[in-house]
């Protein structure tokens, strides 16, 4: 065991897979020599060479599009998009090819591609550096979308993602990259894609969240506990495929469901959770399902971001309203 933050854990997972599988290559803007702007790939080029861990030209569509060819020719590329707000030039390659090649070729060409994507706000950054656009990607048939919230899950999920024969968007909550340290095994282990985790058992209300929002919910839960409310917290870990079973069982138990996410509220992951509550647990509901998500606006610049980010107080406010409904 070793104390790791999320950055260390992702680096460790890449290290393990690079050592184990010669088909794994890692590239992106600044991902080679410098180790990425967040230093997630630091030291890997030195260890595995410039052919396997490298800087690409600065072109996101190029990064994603070349990964398609590499995957078709037998490699397992792990590509880095520097920030969520910069992935859009690659959108065509993702939606038109990465997620379609397996179907289009009737299974002949698999696309074992991992797209690493630092996302989310709360870091006082420029425009395009704070967004949380998971719903855009979860909506694409053919893609799997993963978001860890702990160093342990970051390592285990990334290993699963690299080993997956399907393309995986691996979203990294950069706000908590270095915020949490956890004892993580240095051995190889995996966390399955598509499985949520019940982080705290409770009886009054289910809260579903992921990524950097987990910590905010946990802060709200301290307030809830003082107020006497028992909260069950589910860390989604994978957005698609959604672990409907775990969420449904919890809603049936508590009768109340709140989604917490930092993405724009409309047509989002939260909307899907609301639909799930309706489809699978309608008769068990004691209160209207609730979304605590961002406004349908562009993430404000740093001086205005506090208006936008979901605070523990706001989460507590909605917990109380839902429990007391």
């Amino acid at each position, binding site marked *: 065991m070793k104390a790791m933050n999320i950055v260390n854990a992702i680096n460790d997972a890449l290290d393990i897979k690079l050592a184990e599988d010669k088909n794994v290559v890692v590239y992106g803007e600044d991902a080679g020599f410098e180790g990425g702007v967040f230093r997630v790939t630091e030291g890997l080029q030195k260890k595995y060479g410039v052919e396997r861990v490298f800087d690409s030209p600065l072109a996101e569509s190029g990064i994603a599009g070349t990964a398609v060819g590499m995957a*078709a*020719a037998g490699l397992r590329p792990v590509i880095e998009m520097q920030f969520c707000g910069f992935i859009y030039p690659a959108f065509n390659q993702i939606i038109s090819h990465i997620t379609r090649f397996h179907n289009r070729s009737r299974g002949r060409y698999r696309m074992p591609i991992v797209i690493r994507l630092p996302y989310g706000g709360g870091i006082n950054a420029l425009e395009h550096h704070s967004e949380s656009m998971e719903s855009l990607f979860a909506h694409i048939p053919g893609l799997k979308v993963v978001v860890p919230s702990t160093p342990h899950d970051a390592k285990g999920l990334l290993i699963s993602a690299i080993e*997956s024969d399907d393309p995986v968007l691996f979203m990294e909550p950069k706000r908590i990259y270095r915020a949490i340290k956890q004892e993580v095994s240095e051995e190889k282990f995996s966390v399955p894609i598509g499985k949520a985790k019940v982080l705290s058992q409770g009886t009054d209300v289910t809260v579903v969240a992921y990524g950097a929002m987990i910590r905010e919910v946990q802060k709200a839960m301290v307030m809830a506990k003082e107020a006497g409310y028992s909260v069950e917290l589910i860390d989604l870990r994978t957005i698609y495929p959604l672990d409907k079973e775990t969420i449904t069982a919890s809603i049936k138990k508590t009768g109340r469901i709140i989604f917490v996410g930092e993405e724009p509220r409309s047509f989002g992951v939260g909307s899907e959770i609301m639909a799930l509550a309706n489809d699978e647990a309608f008769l068990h509901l004691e209160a209207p399902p609730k979304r605590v998500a961002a406004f349908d606006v562009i993430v404000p610049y740093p001086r205005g971001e506090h208006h936008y980010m979901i605070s523990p107080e706001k989460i507590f406010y909605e917990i109380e309203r839902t429990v007391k409904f």
Partner: protein
Amino acid sequence: MFDQFDPADDKMLQVIDNNGKVVNREWMPKLTDDELVKLYKEMLFVRTLDFMIVSYQRQGRLYTYPPNYGQEAIGVAAGAVMRHDDWLVPAFRELGAYLAKGVTMNEIFMFNMGFEDGMRFTGANHVLPFSVPIASQLLHAAGIGYAVKYQKKDEVTFTFVGDGGTSEGDFHEALNFAGVWKVPVIFVVQNNQYAISVPVKMQTASVNMAVKSKAYGIKGLKVDGNDIFALLAAFRSAHEYARTESQAVLIEAVTYRKGAHTTSDDPTKYRTSEEEKEWDLKDPLRRMKLFMEKKKLWSDAEEERITEEYRKEIDRQFVETEKSVQYPLEDVFKYMYAEMPQDLRDQQIEHEKFLQWKNARR
């Protein structure tokens, strides 16, 4: 060759003229009489198949199809140069190259009849599916180039795009990546003068397409795309250079789309019959045929006989394909993922329940 035909001077490699006369002995490929006949027959086959597919479309027996009419030499020449392990990353108008790589007529028919099964390319080695989003496939070729270089394999990639595709960002990114990475990829621009209705002069202010290679530090060549011998010479040189030097090459093949963009298009709306007639003289089959007739290797009678043979065989296979195709519901779901999510499985089951209900009502 690349130095001799510098695209910056707008030079174009040409071996035979419009009358089938060799005007450039230096670059005339050495071919035996049998090889010459084979090459011509391949072009004739592609043209015959292409016409037949268009006529099936007119009969309502398949959906949209992008005709190759007038551009047959490019795919055939590339097909003649590609080896078994070389990669073909197609756009969608390179019929001769697909057939040479082992894609079957049955698969072509199926694809245009509306079945993804047509892109299984079961007997073809290293052929990617057709790519419809313009120029996006060029990046796949650059990626394959990286992979084969990394794997230390002796495999060259051929990829295709139209003149309109050179305006897409992915065209430039692909040439740039391939140039920086020094990978053995041959980018072929089929400059057929139109991107649907938009003439090539509205795509670029460059003197030609091949000159764009200069910006990416790779070799470029403009070649007469209706001259089978010039194409063969160009592709052979490019292949040799890409392979031995591990470098990318941009080849512009100047041609003319004599047919429509697809069967849904009407070219009379945007071009004149004078222009079409002018290009008729440069037709790739006509030019090679004139060359062959002079060498007494070909005749109209032979052409008629062989064409009829081809037509019969194509039609036999088409009817066979028509009879055999089916699209079961499960095929809608089963290839979306290598490992299918339970939720998708549930969607299929849910729909099957509806179908059971529907059938029970009858």
